[in-house]
């Protein structure tokens, strides 16, 4: 039994401590919005935010995150109102959608660190997550749009 803090709630999961966080979320807690793509840290579709930083949940042993704050796509907003989600809808980013949780959370982390990211910063950060459907051009646009939305909100 490992105790976790997921999306602001304390939960217990009955997987062994060395099991990756990914499977604890998906199979133990049924937060299936976090995806499996490669299991070895190469694709980024399993990305979650650990104390605000993007981590690859497929490589994160459950025991190492006990008690720390984990944010998954399900916890980003109750109603798709997070600026990154709104930007993603406005730019019509998703195709199959499978990689998008990882893309969105990676963008959230980038914008927390760089509220006005340069194109090079967007490219560098979002290259961490693969998309076989090729949503990259729209991801670039959506990150810029989200930055604009967040700046607007901060100003008002």
């Amino acid at each position, binding site marked *: 039994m490992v105790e976790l803090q997921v999306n602001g709630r304390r939960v217990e999961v009955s*997987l*062994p401590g060395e*099991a*990756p966080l990914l*499977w604890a979320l*998906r*199979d*133990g807690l*049924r*937060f*299936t*919005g*976090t*995806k*499996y*793509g*490669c*299991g*070895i840290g*190469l*694709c980024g*579709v399993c990305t979650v935010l650990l104390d605000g930083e993007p981590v690859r949940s497929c490589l994160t042993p459950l025991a190492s995150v006990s008690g720390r704050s984990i944010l*998954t*796509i*399900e916890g*980003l*907003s109750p109603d*798709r109102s997070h600026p990154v*989600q709104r930007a*993603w*809808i406005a730019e*019509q*980013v*998703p*195709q*199959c*959608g*499978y*990689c*998008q*949780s990882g893309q*969105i959370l990676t963008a959230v982390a980038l914008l927390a660190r760089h509220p006005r990211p340069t194109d090079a910063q967007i*490219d*560098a950060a*979002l*290259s961490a*997550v*693969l*998309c*076989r*459907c*090729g*949503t*990259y*051009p*729209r*991801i*670039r646009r959506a990150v810029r749009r989200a930055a604009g939305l967040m700046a607007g909100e901060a100003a008002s």
Partner: protein
Amino acid sequence: MIRARLTRRAFLRVGVAAGGGLLIGFPWAPGIGESGTRAAFSPNAWLTVHPDGRVDLRVASSEMGQGVLTGIAMLIADELEADWSRVRAKQAPAAPDFANPLMGRQQTGGSTAIRGFWRVAREAGAVGRELLVEAAAARWGVDAGECLARRGVVIHEPTGRRLDYGVLAAAAARLPVPEAVFLKEPEEFRLIGRSQPRLDTPQKVDGSARFGLDVRLPGMWTAVVARSPTLGGRLRGFDARAARAVPGVRAVFPIESGVAVLADHFWAAAQGREALRVHWDPGPHAGVDSAAIERNFAEGLAHGGVVERETGDVDRTVREGRFVEALYRVPYQAHACMEPMNATADVRADGCDLYLPTQAQTASQETAMRLTGLPRERVRVHTTFLGGGFGRRSEQDFVREAVQCSMKAGRPVQVVWSREDDLTHDVYRPATLNRMRGVLDGKGRIVSWEHNIAGPSILARVAPDRVRGGRDPTSVEGAANLPYAIPNLRVTYALVEAPVPVGFWRSVGASQNAYVTECFLDELIAEAGADPVERRLELLRDRPRHRRVLELAAGRAGWGDALPEGRAHGVAVAESFGSVVAQVAEVSIDAGRVRVHRVVCAVDCGIAVNPDLIGQQMESAVVFGLTATLKGAITVRAGRVEQRNFDTFALLRLDECPRIEVHIVPGTDPPGGVGEPGVPPVAPAVANAVFALTGRPVRSLPIRVAG
């Protein structure tokens, strides 16, 4: 509007939905009887108009990213004159009524979804609209001709009275099905031809979209399967003691494809498989490697193949001009859907439920029927979202595994493939070897063209009756239908079996053949000292669609304008699945690394149903094509596929993605395909730019240049 007889009137049924709504479907739908009879809500109805005005649509084709859920819903909703903001679309269950008219089966592939349902889907919508109008006219006691349907309401034009669809649904459901309906002329479309947001976007930004891997059933076990590491190997025996000792592992047993390890969750199943000791008979191909396969292809070329197209006299012209010969190689490619293969089955004595990310509902239903002995109506297929498909999910291997596991375990089982399973047990895009021969006359005109293809056949595996006398239509797609006016031309195909299983891969034969033909054409054009765009336009004098996309792409890309130092343009045009696409790539080479800066894409796909979705699919195709052009390939060594994960089978990343601009040729012809036709021109456009930069033709993929 044009009055059109219903193509399927004999089958169409109208019924009353639960709560008094209007239901339109086909007879297989349980619960829909003769017109006017009461019926409970049926999941097989194509469309349901609820009393509160909401409209539910069922879409037969699988949503795998291409936007088909939205596209087909638009066809129905436009003719229905539905209020788009109140339309919901869901995947249809497996049922004969949902067969794609172009394929006779419920299957998504060959870019046939919009093409196949173009007529029937609109008819179903038009029937709904006419019944609702009639119901309103009856209510008002006026002539139906004075009434007009608009955005979910019927309007009596002389008086301006209005009634909401929801209010009319119950009465409309009691009217007889009309003999013929009015279908809109293209200029009357209200949704079709205008970009509509995808219906599935909201679910895909909040983690709620359910993919195959997200299915969770009470009592479900997760299975991973140990499969032969060599192609064609066989199971000799296994020792499961250590596997069974892993906490969470529930069962270990052999199935057709290998040894299944079943557990409470994926992690335990994967640990169990690690602990499993399996004894494999490596089988007859354990010594095979890529070089040996290619030697077989070369032998196939030497023996000659069947003639798939011949005009003029190629043999005579060879002796009369400047002769150019080249060998082109195209490697095996994996699908690498972002969601690895998986399937969930719940087989019981009285029926079977399949939860599948599948492109092939009919085939999946039949797979389960064969394995369980259950009749068709007892096998229910629930299609989830597909985390990519690209042809891979028309296969039945993962379905068979899930059904066999559930039968043996006596409970719901989800079979999960790891990425390693997915890449090493794919059905790959065929590799081919191509001998090209061209002849130029004294004026530099191309007078002769010969293309000899050697390689394996997908159809020989999946539909052997379609390969007659060694002729295989898919292997020569994009080669036998070369669009250029060349007087002497011959295309041959030599079917060479290889131990690597091959399958449909986004754009199929055209994916290799457009690369080979468009690159060799640039070699001949260079030999003649001509311009690639100008010379193509001359050779396409009888092909107005090709000319138009080529002119559009070249114009928008600034073909012929000066480019920054070290950059060059490359061009290619290809027709596939009823559409024609031209692309111009702007490329540079930096320390041996090919960089694609910009791709301008022009597409003619007839009526552009949803322009933004077409844009999305062209962008998608460019990225998909660039991975195969620049990144990797599947190779075989000691009978094993060498690439096991994204370290050795890399996909294009965001920082390698060019600027992509899409231009759509306005069209009024019925729609062509959109999911695949953007792929074939990518590789040759980039390769031709590299040729322009280096002076050396690119005769094999992925592109490797000396640094």
